[in-house]
């Protein structure tokens, strides 16, 4: 019984590993990231792309915003018809548009998340960790000998 469980665990872990490897190796072929798109600019020139970044500059005169791509040296110029009043440096943006220059996109859709609202998502998430741990360990405990989670109280 114990061996059956171990074999099943190894089998599931192998499948999960294969999924991870498949995703990692094929991801850019199906859902390319902006870094891959810029490295293969000729392939994606004049195609519709989507990506996200952080606003660096808002130019209302030219109806253009400059965004940086986190963890890359790239700065993208985004041409848009509608610059929202509340767009500010540091806000997070999702862009859908046509790549019509190496670092230039004409946007069709822009989704702006104000920086404080973005940070608030993470702050709101923090209480969930102790909440989940409390609910779980209120009724369960880990038995180091059997290497299993068991009921704290058989009647629980």
């Amino acid at each position, binding site marked *: 019984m114990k061996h059956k469980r171990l074999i099943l665990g190894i089998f599931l872990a192998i499948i999960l590993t294969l999924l991870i490897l498949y995703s990692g190796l094929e991801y850019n072929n199906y859902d390319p990231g902006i870094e891959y798109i810029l490295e293969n600019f000729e392939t994606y020139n004049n195609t519709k792309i989507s990506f996200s970044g952080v606003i660096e500059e808002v130019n209302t005169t030219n109806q253009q915003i400059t965004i940086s791509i986190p963890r890359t040296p790239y700065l993208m110029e985004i041409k848009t018809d509608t610059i929202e009043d509340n767009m500010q440096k540091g806000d997070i943006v999702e862009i859908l548009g046509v790549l019509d220059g190496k670092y230039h996109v004409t946007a069709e859709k822009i*989704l702006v998340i*104000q920086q404080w609202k973005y940070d608030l*998502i993470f702050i709101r998430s923090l209480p969930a960790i102790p909440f989940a741990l409390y609910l779980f360990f209120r*009724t369960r405990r880990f038995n180091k000998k059997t290497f299993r*989670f068991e009921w704290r109280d058989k009647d629980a």
Partner: protein
Amino acid sequence: MPDWLTHTLAGWITGKAIKMEVGLLVVGSLIPDLVKINLAFLYLGVDLHHFLNPFHTPAGAFFIAGIFALFFEDAKKAFIPLGIGIITHFILDFFLVHVSGGMKLLFPISWSEWQYYLIRSDDYHMTIVAVLAAILVYIIYFYHKKERL
């Protein structure tokens, strides 16, 4: 993503409503967001998003739940609430607004993405609704329990 508080509260409410082990259901509701482990890797300067993405697909999340369930006496009984928790997670995430794309619900069979753009991920009203719903369920559950005593 909706915040984790919304996910855990949705899991807790579901667990109370269907009378299942809430602890496991709440843990299950957070399993797909194990993909956020990537934040730790990003801090170390390594981006593993493409590799970890299967965690945020039903197939990947259910495999993780399957492995976790093996650490319980009755693995099948543990897997069910974990799985329901995962489903609550994907239902909530399904309604998030993006400019394009969505969730790869049929990965690895298909890379197609599905989403119904309804709620912005930064909309904290969703969290408030979840908190109020949880309080309501708690009150109902509390009085129901009191009446039975």
